[in-house]
């Protein structure tokens, strides 16, 4: 199945990226070439194979519920692109 301009636009929205008109053909081409290559995995027999999301057999990695100091406000805000009165500042969300 070939990737269309609509597919790229949809994935771009999900990715919070915009694809300019002059780069659209390149994205379609790159994604098609990539998907054509990765289709090799469809040849593998994975019937009854469980997926491995993680190579370590770790389960329930909990720590003791002890209150510890967290990053203080000034440090947390130190890299904010915009801040005001001790808060992160963002464009208005609710009209």
């Amino acid at each position, binding site marked *: 199945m070939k990737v269309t301009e609509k597919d790229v636009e949809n*994935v*771009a929205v999900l990715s*919070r990226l915009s694809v300019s008109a002059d780069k659209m053909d390149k994205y379609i081409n790159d*994604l098609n070439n990539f998907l054509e290559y990765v289709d090799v995995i469809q040849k593998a027999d994975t019937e009854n194979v469980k997926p*491995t999301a993680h190579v370590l057999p770790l389960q329930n*990695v909990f720590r003791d519920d002890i209150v510890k100091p967290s990053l203080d406000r000034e440090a947390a805000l130190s890299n904010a*692109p915009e801040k005001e009165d001790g808060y992160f500042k963002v464009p208005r969300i609710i009209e």
Partner: protein
Amino acid sequence: MDLYKQPAHVLHDMLENKEITAVEMTKNFIARINSFDNKIGAYITKMSDTALKTAETVDADIANGKKINFLTGLPGAVKDNICTLGTKTTCASEMLKNFVPPYNASVMEKLNKEKAIILGKTNMDEFAMGGSTENSAFFTTHNPWNTEYVPGGSSGGSAAAVASGLAAWALGSDTGGSIRQPASFCGIVGMKPTYGRVSRYGLIAYASSLDQIGPLTRDVTDCANILNIISGYDEKDSTSIKKDIPDYTKSLVQNVKGLKIGIPKEFFIEGMNKEVYTAVKKAVSDLEAMGAEVRNISLPHTKYAIAAYYLIAPAEATTNLSRYDGVSYGARVPGEDIVAMMTNTRTAKFGDEVKRRIMIGNYALSAGYYDAYYLKALKIRTLVKEDYDKAFEKVDIIVAPNAPTPAYKIGSIINDPLQMYLQDICTVPLNLAGLPGISLPCGFSRDGLPIGMQIIGKPLDEETIIKTAYTYEQSNDFHKKFSGVE
């Protein structure tokens, strides 16, 4: 004696024997960086002032009769995706160009406890996505053996720094080969430990189930010593392994008698560079002559590994990089509403390769394609891991090339992403299986470019890898050759 050509263990001995001070040693490396890094481009951020201050405290400690540890007072470098409190950590991205972490990565805490000298933060492919360091948003790093060639990637800055004597040791990170392949291209030693052996806390995440921090060094002795320092359980990393750490320096022995070495036919692929093939095969026959038993093995699912990796890694990257939204840290480009602000920020501040992988990841995870791509890739991951489990029932160690070719020319394949991805065929399967692996020099091409061999071990069996690597290293002088600019 040229200090910058020496491995870290020789410099450590000099410091311990009071043949030199930490300040003298640090000044020596800083002067070399100031003279030659313009030809290599290893460093994004230089930390000369803090390096000298640390060196002064080390000299005071030594004067007071305090015993020094292995890295105490030794000048090294850290990849710029490892968070350093108070010092910029950019991930070679415009997105994090001005990011100053308010905390240290756990490995940095360990290095600081040793009073290791950090000369600076090294260049890399943006967010560790790439195999050539050409994807840095700032500049390309050059291979010290021939500056027209790539140093490999994504830890290309760390590898080039060590290879050219701009650091005595370095740390990198390996998601699909990003320590081993640049070590191979630059003629040094690079190790990816078992997944979970070294804490990832404070490593800026690319693909969390694959990323692992490890050392880049001039020889195997340095590698074992640094592994001793950076390994260990960390409660801040939920994927960290709670197991005792052996003293890896005890594996620095010359003995491969009776060691069963597996040679996987799938790693000696058709079309691979003849000089690489010959050099690695020669290394295997050298080990055989020293008493190892060589057996041909098969890892049949290797042929699916690259495709599975390039679905899994971008899927994880998509999730990890969703935090760069222009709100709490990193760059921001204004927009008329919050969605426009986020979209403008990400579009302007991520590089092409990062955007490509985010798009691939979102495609693979999106409704309708999840089962066919992402879930299928996770099942392939199981098969790849099972291949190794079966192989290790018959052999103790596996030997293979690191890359199908030596370093290639800057710009030669950067515009062909698929060709670039195929370069990772020899390194990626280990990350999928979480296995440890080392790269060390085993020869040179006719053009004078280094060739690396890869030694792959069972999970948590770094000791056998180090023993095999050390035995091989002591039988030749490839690791003693120096590439650096003069």
